């Protein structure tokens, strides 16, 4: 328990240092709030947004969208990555289009995605999906390809069918890379969200940032950025990092840090 606490403190420390630097710089150079807000201003914006309940609404809406888009993306990307890692024909066929589409930004898709998936939720989900999908696919593919051949052979000659091969060998074997893929992808999902919430919304963190930007409310912008950063840190620390510890580090597939 004590070590848990100290590791949490150690985790927070660098961030605290960052806040301190920020506070000192803004105070000592007397930075104009339009250029960068002060720590108290951001704190006040936070308190106020909590008090009037809008922040909770924005966070709730954004989290919902992120969750749907990300889960969908992972559900499609992981099997696809595995199929490509296992089967050369699938890989040869899918590689060109995947490469092609992987650079097409979410916002570029908005007009077309709107036609296909409807304006609002559909298009936003698509943009998030688009941010997560490619990273997870490529990382899964790499993960599958780095499983030593004898390990797959061993499973095959112990009678593992395709399904068992998937769940017992390919998934756990590719897990280190899948987790990294999700970590990268989720980060981009947040970015995609901010871009996508410019459309068809009246709630969400992206919307909040957008409106704040129009009125130069930098303290709200920075507050929004921090909220996003913290939510993301929490997700990573409460979901991804423990998953890593319990699986790939435990199994000795990567070294603990």
């Amino acid at each position, binding site marked *: 328990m004590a070590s848990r606490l100290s590791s949490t403190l150690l985790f927070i420390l660098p961030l605290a240092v960052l806040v301190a630097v920020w506070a000192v710089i803004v105070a000592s150079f007397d930075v104009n709030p339009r250029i960068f807000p002060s720590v108290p201003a951001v704190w006040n914006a936070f308190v106020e947004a909590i008090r009037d309940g809008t922040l909770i609404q924005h966070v709730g809406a954004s989290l919902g969208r992120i969750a749907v888009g990300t889960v969908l993306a992972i559900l499609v990307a992981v099997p696809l990555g595995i199929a490509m890692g296992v089967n050369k024909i699938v890989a*040869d066929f899918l590689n*060109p289009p995947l490469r092609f*589409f992987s650079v097409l930004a979410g916002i570029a898709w908005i007009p077309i995605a709107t036609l296909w998936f409807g304006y609002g939720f559909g298009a936003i989900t698509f943009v998030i999906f688009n941010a997560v999908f490619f990273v997870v696919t490529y990382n899964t593919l790499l993960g599958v390809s780095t499983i030593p051949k004898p390990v797959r052979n061993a499973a095959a000659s112990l009678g593992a069918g395709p399904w068992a091969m998937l769940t017992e060998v390919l998934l756990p074997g590719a897990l280190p890379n899948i987790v990294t893929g999700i970590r*990268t992808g989720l980060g981009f999902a947040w*970015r995609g969200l901010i871009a996508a919430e410019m459309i068809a919304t009246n709630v969400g963190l992206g919307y909040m940032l957008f409106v704040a930007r129009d009125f130069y409310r930098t303290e709200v912008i920075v507050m929004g950025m921090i909220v996003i950063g*913290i939510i993301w840190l929490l997700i990573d620390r409460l979901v991804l990092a423990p998953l890593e510890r319990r699986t790939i580090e435990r199994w000795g597939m990567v070294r603990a840090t």
Partner: protein
Amino acid sequence: MNVLLPIWSGYVRLTTRFPIVQTLVPFIPVIALWWIVSAAEVFPKVFFPGPVEVWKSFVSLTYKGILPDYLEDSLIRLAVGALCGIALGIPLGILIGVSKRAHTALWPVVLFFQAIGDIAWLPILLIWFGFGLTTMTFVIVYTVMFPVIFNTVLGVRSVPLDLFRAAQSLGASKFAILKEVTLPGALPNIITGLRNGLGFGWRALIATEIIVGTSGIGFLMFDARRAGSVVEIMLGMIILGTLWYIVDAWILAPIERATGQRWGTVQK
């Protein structure tokens, strides 16, 4: 099935003779679908133009010389940003992967900033750096860096411990270990990191060119969009996709084949 088999084996033979076929064939269904949907006017033509319209706009923009100029601008911006991003991302990733202290100090910060999108930074960056290459480079670097860092860290952490030990007891210095063990060991992951990072770098470029640029493919796409023309958006997307395809297929994939696959650390 019996009918398909000779067709399939013919296709395989064709692809081994002409690898370009392998690249092009998968796009046939995509383009065909696009063509059919647009020709059937499932959506009004203005909102969903077909291949012909896009081709026409390609020809006319190339003829006017706009497209080549814009392309050059975009590519230079991307190259500058990507190179800086890689030059920062790989060393940082290795540092975090190798040193526990660096991990403690940097990991939370890296995670934190990863989620804060480039777009959120833009207004502040514009005031800091103005409208220009610096701002665009910053955004691209910011985008490219994170996937490269994450994958490099993973790569470093999954190099078998015995290999470091072997190098150490053969007298390898810290730097030699980095060069001879850590880097090659992490390479398959680094390449996937580059693939993801550069892919997102393109995206970031597009996003910044909307606001910061007066030229470039992103500018082209969004300038057109501000006037409600979807054709240029599609054209821009095709150009981007094609360019990236070339970068990936001509640079990254060959490196992959010559390293991880050659060494047997990555299955083909």
